[in-house]
C-alpha cells in the first residue's frame, strides 16, 4: 500500500515540478535518447508554432513519465515491500505509461498529418492554380418573363484562354480553334457588342474575361463606344409601345446600344481590373497558347493555359418564380433566391403645402439618379445621370432665391430625383401609382395630397455632358407629338425658354417635330393620366439620337465623356468649363420658370452658381470625400464619405424596406434638403420632426469655415424619400407577364466565393488518363499487399499472433 501511495505522490510532485520548470524543460531532452522523441521533433520543426508547442508539452510529459517509472522501480527495489504492492505499482506505472505513450503517438500523428495535409493542400493549390483576385463580375437579373445576364454552375466554367483583340483572332477562335471550350481574354477596346454576340453564339466559348481599360487613356476605349443598353431603352414600358408611328423600331435613341445587358449570356463575364493580373494571364497565354505558323496558325499541343470562371447564381427563370420561392420555407434551401431592384427617390417642394389647403399649380422638374451596366457596382454615370443631377440641384438652389415671387404668382415647384429609371422607370412608376391612389407625397404626412391633375408642367432633364466638349451648345426640347397640342403651357414655357438664350452661351431649340419623346420618366406620367396626359418638356443635348456612345456602360467615365478629361488635375475649388456651361443651362431653366410663372422679364442678377454645379460634379464623379458632401450630411453619417476616394456607383441596387442601401440616394436627399431648405437656429435637441408640420428637419454638418471647423445647423425642408419599389411587388395577384409595371429583380449569390477567376495549366488527356491509371494501380497494389501481409501476419509478427494462428501453428 505504502509504495502505491508513494508512487502516486511522487507522480503528483513530478507534475508540480514539471509545471514549475515548464520553460526550461525542453533542454532536458538530452536526458533521453529515445528515437521516438527525436523523430517527432524532426516532424515538429516544420510545423506551425502552436502545434510545436502542443507537441513539445506532450513530449515533456512523456519524459516525466519515464522518470516517474524509473523512480517507482527504484523504490520497489530499495524498500522491503509486499509482492502484490510491488506488482500493482509497476502495473500502474506501465498502464499510465501506455496511456501516455499512446496519447503521444496519436497526437503526434494527428497533428503532423493535419499540418502536412494543410500544407500540401495549399502547396498543391498553389502548384496548380493562380488566383486572379481583382475582378468584377456580371450577374443575373430577371423580369416578369425572362432571365438575363451571367451565370455558371457551382463549380464554375473552365476554358482554354485565348487572347482576342482583332477580327482575325476572333475568326481563328471560332473557325479553327480545336481546344474548345475557350475563355477569351478581350482588351476593352475590342469588348464590343459584335464581338460578344459572335462569341456567345459560337458555342465554343465558356466565359469571357475583359481587361479593364486604362481610364485616363482615350485610346483604350472602344473606338465606336460601348453601350450594353437596348437601342430603345425601357422599350417595354414606353408610352409608344403600340404606337404605329412612334414605336421603338422607328425611333431608336440609343443607336449605339448593343443590348448585351438584356441578353441571357448563360456564361460568366469577368472584368479584370488590375493591369498586373492581366499581364499574369497574358504571360501564361503567351508561354503556352499562342498559335504558331502565321496564316494557317495551328494551336500548340497541351498543356494549355486555361481559366476557371465562377459566377454562381441562386435564382433562375423569372421574377415570378424566384419571388415565389423566396416565400416558401424549405429545409436545406437558402432563404432568398432573388431581390427586387429598387431604392429611394428623393423629392422636395419649393414650399410645403399643409393639409387641407389647396395646392398651387406645380411645375415638376425631374432628373434620374441611376445608371446601370454589365458589371457589379461599375456605374460611373458621367453622361447619365451626373450632369442632370447637377443641373437639378443648381436649379433648386437658384429657384429657392426667387421662391416668394413664384409662390405669390400661384405656382410651386417640385424637384424629383428618381432612381430605378434604368430598369423600366421603377421610381416614376411608383410615384405615379401613389399619385393615382392619392398617397403622394406621403400616405401619412401632413402635407396636402398631390395627384397627376395637379401637375402643371413637367420639365425633365435628360443628358447634357456633350456640351462640355464644345461641339455644340444647343439644348433640344422634346415634346410628345400626340398630346402637346392640348396644352398651352408647353408653347408658353418654350417661348420663355428661348427668350433666355441670348444672354447665355446656350441655345434652346426644338427637337425634330416628327419624333416621339426620348426614353424618359415623363412618359410614365403621361401614361398615368390616360384621358389627357400631362404636359411634358424633356431637355437634352441630343436631338434624334443620344450623343453619348456609352449610355449605361461601365465605361461612361468623366474622362471619355469630356467632363473631366484628366481626373487627377481636377480641383474642388477650380470651377471647370463644363460646370460653367451647365450652370448656364441651369440659369436658362430657372429664368424660364420665373418668367413663365411671374410674367416678369429676365433678371440677370439671379444666375445659377457655377461653383455649385462644379462641386456636385466633383463629388459625384471624382471623389465623395468632398466639402459639399461633408456639408450636407448629418454629423453621424460623415463616415460614409470620409476617406472614400472612389466615386459611388449610380446603380439602383436592391430595395430594402426602410433603408437606402446606395449612398447616392442618401446624398441626393441631403443635397435637396440643403439646397431647398431653410436654415433655422434650432439646437440639435430641438431639431426634430414636428408631427403636425409637413416639413422635415435635417441636422447637418454645415458649411466649413476658413479654419476648417464647421457650424452644425438644423435645416427645415420638404425634402423626403419616396420609395422606388415597383407597384408590381405590392399588388396582390399581379400578372407578371402583363408588362404594366417594372418587375426587375436580381439573383442572390453566395456570401463566400460567388465570383472567382483562376488560371491553371490544362494537361493533355493522355496525362490525365495516365495519372488516373497510376492512381488506380497504386490502390490495387496496396490492397493486394495488405491482404498478403494479413494472411502471413503469424509469420511476420510472431508476438502479435492470435489464438487461431497459434492453433493452426501447433
Amino acid at each position, binding site marked *: 500500500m505504502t509504495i502505491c501511495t508513494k508512487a502516486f505522490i511522487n507522480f503528483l510532485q513530478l507534475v508540480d515540478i514539471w509545471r514549475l520548470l515548464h520553460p526550461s524543460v525542453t533542454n532536458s531532452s538530452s536526458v533521453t535518447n529515445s528515437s521516438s522523441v527525436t523523430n517527432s521533433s524532426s516532424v515538429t520543426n516544420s510545423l506551425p508554432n502552436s502545434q510545436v508547442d502542443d507537441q513539445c508539452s506532450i513530449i515533456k510529459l512523456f519524459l516525466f513519465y519515464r522518470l516517474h517509472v524509473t523512480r517507482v522501480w527504484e523504490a520497489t527495489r530499495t524498500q522491503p515491500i509486499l509482492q502484490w504492492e510491488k506488482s500493482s505499482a509497476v502495473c500502474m506505472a506501465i498502464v499510465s505509461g501506455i496511456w501516455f505513450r499512446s496519447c503521444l503517438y496519436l497526437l503526434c500523428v494527428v497533428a503532423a498529418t493535419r499540418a502536412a495535409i494543410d500544407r500540401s493542400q495549399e502547396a498543391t493549390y498553389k502548384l496548380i492554380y493562380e488566383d486572379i483576385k481583382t475582378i468584377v463580375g456580371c450577374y443575373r437579373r430577371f423580369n416578369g418573363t425572362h432571365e438575363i445576364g451571367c*451565370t455558371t*454552375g*457551382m463549380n464554375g466554367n473552365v476554358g482554354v484562354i485565348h487572347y482576342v483583340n482583332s477580327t482575325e483572332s476572333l475568326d481563328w477562335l471560332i473557325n479553327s480553334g480545336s481546344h474548345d471550350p475557350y475563355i477569351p481574354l478581350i482588351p476593352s477596346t475590342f469588348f464590343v457588342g459584335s464581338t460578344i454576340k459572335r462569341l456567345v453564339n459560337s458555342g465554343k466559348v465558356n466565359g469571357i474575361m475583359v481587361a479593364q481599360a486604362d481610364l485616363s487613356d482615350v485610346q483604350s476605349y472602344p473606338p465606336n463606344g460601348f453601350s450594353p443598353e437596348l437601342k430603345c431603352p425601357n422599350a417595354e414600358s414606353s408610352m409608344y409601345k403600340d404606337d404605329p408611328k412612334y414605336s421603338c423600331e422607328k425611333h431608336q435613341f440609343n443607336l449605339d446600344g448593343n443590348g448585351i445587358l438584356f441578353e441571357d449570356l448563360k456564361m460568366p463575364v469577368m472584368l479584370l481590373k488590375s493591369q498586373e493580373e492581366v499581364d499574369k494571364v497574358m504571360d501564361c497565354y503567351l508561354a503556352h497558347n499562342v498559335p504558331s505558323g502565321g496564316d494557317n496558325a495551328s494551336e500548340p499541343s497541351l498543356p494549355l493555359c486555361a481559366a476557371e470562371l465562377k459566377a*454562381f*447564381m*441562386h*435564382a*433562375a*427563370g423569372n421574377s415570378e*418564380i424566384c419571388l*415565389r*420561392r423566396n416565400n*416558401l420555407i*424549405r*429545409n*436545406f*434551401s*437558402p432563404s432568398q*433566391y432573388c431581390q427586387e431592384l429598387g431604392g429611394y427617390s428623393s423629392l422636395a417642394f419649393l414650399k410645403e403645402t399643409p393639409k387641407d389647403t389647396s395646392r398651387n399649380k406645380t411645375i415638376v422638374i425631374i432628373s434620374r439618379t441611376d445608371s446601370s451596366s454589365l458589371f457589379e457596382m461599375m456605374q460611373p454615370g458621367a453622361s447619365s445621370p451626373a450632369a442632370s443631377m447637377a443641373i437639378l440641384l443648381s436649379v433648386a438652389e437658384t429657384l429657392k432665391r426667387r421662391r416668394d415671387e413664384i409662390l405669390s404668382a400661384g405656382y410651386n415647384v417640385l424637384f424629383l430625383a428618381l432612381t430605378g429609371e434604368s430598369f423600366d422607370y421603377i421610381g416614376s412608376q411608383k410615384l405615379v401609382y401613389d399619385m393615382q391612389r392619392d398617397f403622394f407625397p406621403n400616405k401619412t404626412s401632413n402635407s396636402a395630397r398631390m395627384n397627376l391633375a395637379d401637375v402643371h408642367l413637367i420639365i425633365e432633364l435628360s443628358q447634357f455632358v456633350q456640351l462640355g466638349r464644345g461641339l455644340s451648345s444647343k439644348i433640344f426640347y422634346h415634346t410628345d407629338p400626340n398630346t402637346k397640342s392640348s396644352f398651352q403651357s408647353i408653347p408658353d414655357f418654350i417661348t420663355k425658354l428661348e427668350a433666355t438664350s441670348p444672354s447665355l452661351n446656350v441655345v434652346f431649340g426644338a427637337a425634330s417635330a416628327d419624333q416621339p419623346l426620348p426614353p424618359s420618366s415623363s412618359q410614365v406620367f403621361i401614361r398615368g393620366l390616360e384621358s389627357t396626359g400631362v404636359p411634358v418638356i424633356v431637355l437634352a443635348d441630343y436631338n434624334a439620337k443620344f450623343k453619348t456612345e456609352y449610355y449605361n456602360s461601365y465605361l461612361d467615365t468623366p474622362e471619355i465623356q469630356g467632363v473631366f478629361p484628366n481626373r487627377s488635375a481636377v480641383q474642388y475649388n477650380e470651377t471647370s468649363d463644363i460646370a460653367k456651361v451647365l450652370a448656364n443651362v441651369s440659369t436658362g431653366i430657372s429664368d424660364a420658370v420665373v418668367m413663365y410663372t411671374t410674367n416678369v422679364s429676365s433678371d440677370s442678377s439671379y444666375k445659377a452658381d457655377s461653383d455649385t454645379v462644379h462641386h456636385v460634379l466633383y463629388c459625384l464623379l471624382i471623389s465623395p470625400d468632398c466639402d459639399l458632401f461633408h456639408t450636407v450630411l448629418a454629423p453621424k453619417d460623415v463616415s460614409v464619405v470620409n476617406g472614400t476616394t472612389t466615386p459611388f456607383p449610380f446603380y439602383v441596387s436592391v430595395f430594402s424596406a426602410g433603408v437606402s442601401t446606395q449612398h447616392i440616394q442618401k446624398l441626393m436627399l441631403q443635397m435637396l434638403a440643403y439646397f431647398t431648405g431653410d436654415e433655422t437656429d434650432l439646437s440639435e435637441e430641438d431639431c426634430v420632426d414636428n408631427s403636425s408640420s409637413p416639413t422635415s428637419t435635417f441636422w447637418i454638418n454645415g458649411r466649413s469655415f476658413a479654419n476648417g471647423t464647421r457650424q452644425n445647423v438644423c435645416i427645415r425642408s420638404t425634402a423626403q424619400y419616396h420609395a422606388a419599389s415597383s407597384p408590381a411587388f405590392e399588388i396582390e395577384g399581379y400578372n407578371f407577364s402583363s408588362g404594366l409595371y417594372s418587375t426587375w429583380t436580381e439573383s442572390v449569390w453566395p456570401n463566400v466565393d460567388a465570383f472567382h477567376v483562376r488560371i491553371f495549366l490544362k494537361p493533355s488527356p493522355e496525362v490525365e488518363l495516365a495519372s488516373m491509371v497510376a492512381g488506380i494501380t497504386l490502390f490495387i497494389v496496396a490492397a493486394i499487399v495488405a491482404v498478403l501481409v494479413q494472411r502471413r501476419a503469424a509469420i511476420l509478427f510472431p508476438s502479435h499472433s492470435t489464438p487461431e494462428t497459434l492453433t493452426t501453428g501447433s
Partner: protein
Amino acid sequence: MLTQLDLLEQSLDLSKVSNEEKLKICRKYYLAGFALLPFVWAINAVWFFKYAFKSTEFPEQKKMRSYVLQSLVGCVVWTIALIIWISLYQINRASWGLIGDQISFIIPLNRI
C-alpha cells in the same frame, strides 16, 4: 438459459423456427406492408420465397404462398408506381410552377 440476444438471433434464423412460427412472422410482415411500407413487403417476399415455393411441403405453406405472392405483387406495383411518379416529377416539376415548388423538399439553385 437463453438471453434476449439469443432469442432474437434464433427468431431471425428462419431455419431454426417452426413452420407455424414462420407463417406467423410472414403474416405479420404481410399486414405491416399495408401501412404504406412496400419495403416490408419486399423483405417478406424475399425472405419467405424459399419456404413458400422451394422447400418441401408443410401444412402452412399454402397460406404462406398467398402472403408471399401478395407481398410480391404489392411491392412490384409500388415500385412501378414510384418509378412513374418520380419520372413524372423530375421531368415536369419546373413546368408545374407553383405546385411543383410546393411539393418539393429541396428546390435546386441556379435552375428552374
